[in-house]
């Protein structure tokens, strides 16, 4: 294996960022012009949305359970056990729901997109598509982008609800809190800004999952080994991006809505 000079490595990195930007830009632009592949969009919605439901419900539910258990221990010291519902709902809606959903869907779907498109790339199916007059970005990337952004929004709502339900179950059945006051606390502590913040994040996460997954898939080289590498890179990069963008969006939202 030959060693590459640092400037060549840097050039490759810059070129990769440029390629990613072009791909993402074109995927967005294709939403607003015909033809739009509706059948592919609905297929992807089913795969991403319905297919991810079990893991989203389970991870959301048990995160809510753990959150309730852990927070009660800390709140007891301040005599604020009644605030458990408030803490669980705020944590789930503002942070854990969106981020966990993003990470879970990233692990499932960014990997799926990278491996599917990567396999198509190494078997020349993407070149064949272009040779047959179909734009692969329009046919493969745009439907996945639309489907992921749309479905991640609703998956996040489901994760939030499952988390709050899990927290309620633990608080009422294991910690002996009053169900009515727990739910009232949960509900009344949520402000308009919290909901907006929690539901803005999946839009960014969905965009990251689809574009990063498709980007690594469409630049796959090196046969089956390359497909495996692209899949791993897609999951790692999209997960890190989701957490970084989560921080940026949170800071932005605090700036807009206050704490």
């Amino acid at each position: 294996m030959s060693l590459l000079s640092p400037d060549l490595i840097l050039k490759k990195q810059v070129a990769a960022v440029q390629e990613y930007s072009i791909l993402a830009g074109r995927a967005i632009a294709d939403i607003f012009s015909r033809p739009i592949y509706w059948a592919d969009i609905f297929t992807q919605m089913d795969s991403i949305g319905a297919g991810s439901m079990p893991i989203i419900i389970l991870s959301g539910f048990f995160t809510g359970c753990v959150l309730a258990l852990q927070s009660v221990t800390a709140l007891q010291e301040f005599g604020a056990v009644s605030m458990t519902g408030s803490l669980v709902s705020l944590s789930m809606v503002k942070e854990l729901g969106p981020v966990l959903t993003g990470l879970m869907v990233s692990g499932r779907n960014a990997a799926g997109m990278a491996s599917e498109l990567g396999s198509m790339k190494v078997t020349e199916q993407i070149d064949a598509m272009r040779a047959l007059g179909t734009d692969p970005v329009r046919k493969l990337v745009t439907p996945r982008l639309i489907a992921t952004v749309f479905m991640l929004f609703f998956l996040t709502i489901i994760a939030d609800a499952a988390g709050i339900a899990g927290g309620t179950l633990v608080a009422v059945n294991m910690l002996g809190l009053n169900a009515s006051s727990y739910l009232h606390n949960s509900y009344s502590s949520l402000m308009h800004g919290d909901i907006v913040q929690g539901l803005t994040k999946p839009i960014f996460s969905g965009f990251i999952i689809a574009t990063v997954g498709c980007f690594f898939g469409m630049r796959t080289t090196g046969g089956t080994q390359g497909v495996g590498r692209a899949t791993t890179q897609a999951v790692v990069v999209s997960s890190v991006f989701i957490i970084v963008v989560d921080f940026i969006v949170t800071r932005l939202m605090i700036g807009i809505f206050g704490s």
Partner: protein
Amino acid sequence: MAEDLPSTDVATVEPAKAGAAVVQFEDVSITFDVKPVLQGISFTVERGQTLILLGPAGCGKSVLLKLANGLLKPDSGTIRIFGEDIDKLQRREMYALRARIGMVFQESALFDSLNVEDNVAYRLHEEQMPETEAHARVVEALKFVELETSIDKFPSELSGGMRRRVSIARAIISNPDLILYDSPTGGLDPITSATIMELVMKQRDVSHTTSLLVTHRLQDAFMLATHRFDAAGGMKPIAKDGPDHGIDPGMKFLVLNEGKIVFHGTTEELVHSEDPWIKRYLE
């Protein structure tokens, strides 16, 4: 990933004038990373001609085909297809141009999630052709490659030779003016290779389609140069005492080595070449 977008408003590309070159490369060069793959490539292919691209593995034959179809862009030089400089074409014009080009890929490149019918009809479905009309066209194309009984099968259920035949059916379904064959017999046994070459010959002699054919099998290239398709008996050798002296006059050869053209000419010129590298290559 610089790509040509299709559009619903299909732009028209002027048909090539009679006698005009269908494919024209002028001083075309392309480099991958730091490695030059093709350097200063210039040649033309006239209407109805078949150009066979020969050369050792990795000399840039497949890259040349992808350049001809606009799948890759050259670093320098001009490529004209049907008289149009493809570098200057708008995306929708490129889309219209590609509708006139059929391509058979090295490993068939069939869509593995679609059955044979949907693979062959892919272009027709994209053009929103009514299902009954598309089905009739698919059956016709599959009859040409003698594979009409496999219409419902998936690519994973087909042998290598059958996949290559489906790929040919997919390339010819829109009656293209130019066909690009990228090693259509690569990795196949001699008997299956002969079947595929017969189909290439059939397309050449029945439809008189201009074509570029990449191969590294000399026997396939010379079979194509010395045989004609006969509807009654399949491949037949061209009579040596006939007007063509046993060689198809529409065949040209282009031999590449290390990204450069080392020979461009007729079958006769190739076999009588005094170039020591070509002599060694042909042996």
